[in-house]
């Protein structure tokens, strides 16, 4: 066989041989070659030494409270939106106050949008913003839309009831 060391692609086979990751047949072919090729023999010996040196490096065990900390973060992550909208829930119950607040909010948002319109944002910045949108943000936005839709239905229902 040609010496695998002469080509990087085939040299990867030698790495596989040293890591004993090759199938039996390929392992045997390389073994026969290494027996007659001093260059490959030197490579294999030094690679085995590296392999053994790396094996000596054991990682520390994972902290006992790893899962507890993770689940706490998951819980916090899931409830931040709830906590954000919790103060607004009583307003939903008093719909007339909420309707006024929503009206003010819409007016303020429209005003802000109109003020920002002349400034043309850079294309690169736009892309970066889009990339940063997380799926849960979209979920939360949809939740918020659902909540507003419910609210509108309630407003309409009570208006109909009064008529």
């Amino acid at each position, binding site marked *: 066989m040609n010496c695998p060391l002469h080509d*990087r*692609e085939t*040299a*990867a086979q030698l*790495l596989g041989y040293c*890591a004993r*990751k090759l199938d039996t047949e390929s392992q045997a072919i390389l073994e026969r070659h290494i027996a007659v090729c001093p260059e490959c023999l030197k*490579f294999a*010996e*030094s*690679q*085995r*030494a*590296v*392999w*053994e*040196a*790396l094996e*000596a*490096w*054991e*990682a*520390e*065990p*994972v*902290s006992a409270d*790893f*899962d507890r*900390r*993770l689940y706490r*973060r*998951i819980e916090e*992550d899931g409830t931040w939106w709830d906590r954000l909208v919790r103060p607004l829930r009583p307003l939903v119950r008093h719909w007339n106050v909420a309707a006024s607040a929503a009206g003010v909010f819409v007016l303020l948002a429209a005003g802000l949008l109109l003020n920002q319109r002349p400034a043309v944002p850079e294309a690169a910045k736009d892309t970066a913003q889009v*990339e940063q949108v*997380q*799926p*849960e943000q979209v*979920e939360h936005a949809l939740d918020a839309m659902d909540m507003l839709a419910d609210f509108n239905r309630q407003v309409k229902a009570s208006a109909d009831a009064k008529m």
Partner: protein
Amino acid sequence: MPERVSKGMGGATAALDLDAELMLRVKEGDGASFGVLLDKHRSSVVHFLYRMVQNHAVAEELAQEVFLRVYRSRSTYEPTAKFTTWLFRIATHLALNSLRDGKNERLQERLDDDSNDMPVRQVRDVRPSVEQSMVYQARLHEVRQAISALPEKQRAAVLMHKYEEMEYSQIARVLNCSESAVKSLLFRAYETLRARLAHMA
């Protein structure tokens, strides 16, 4: 993010991936399946990150972020690749960002102060003599320095190849490069390591 992570990954083997099936159950609201995935991959993710950033506290913090992102992405998860490819892609991404952000600026100092991060439990012998322990610590120090001196992508490739026993094709998917690029990365990385560590035989 998960959509971008999934892009470009081969999906042929994914159908048979048990982890992917568990993740699909998580998607359907089965929290216990997330626990199974966490049990199965917690150690390998933390150990990979530890060897990448060489700081246990930072590694655990990053690993928490990895699993948090996996959980957050459950609703949009599609098994377009092996679950571990996706998992290690997130882990590698976070580790590289952490290294680039300079969160490990004091890495060299920590490496010089071995007592900080190399507890006795890392020594394999049950009761090593003082001399054995010192030799072991010196060798470990050399290994850690050799790994940390590798360019980031080479380091990630070596760690996945050596400790996670990943195939070239999977490493390629994690690092988002071709299989031949991975072979080249590994060849260069081991070349450097041989120059620094071969005398340890």
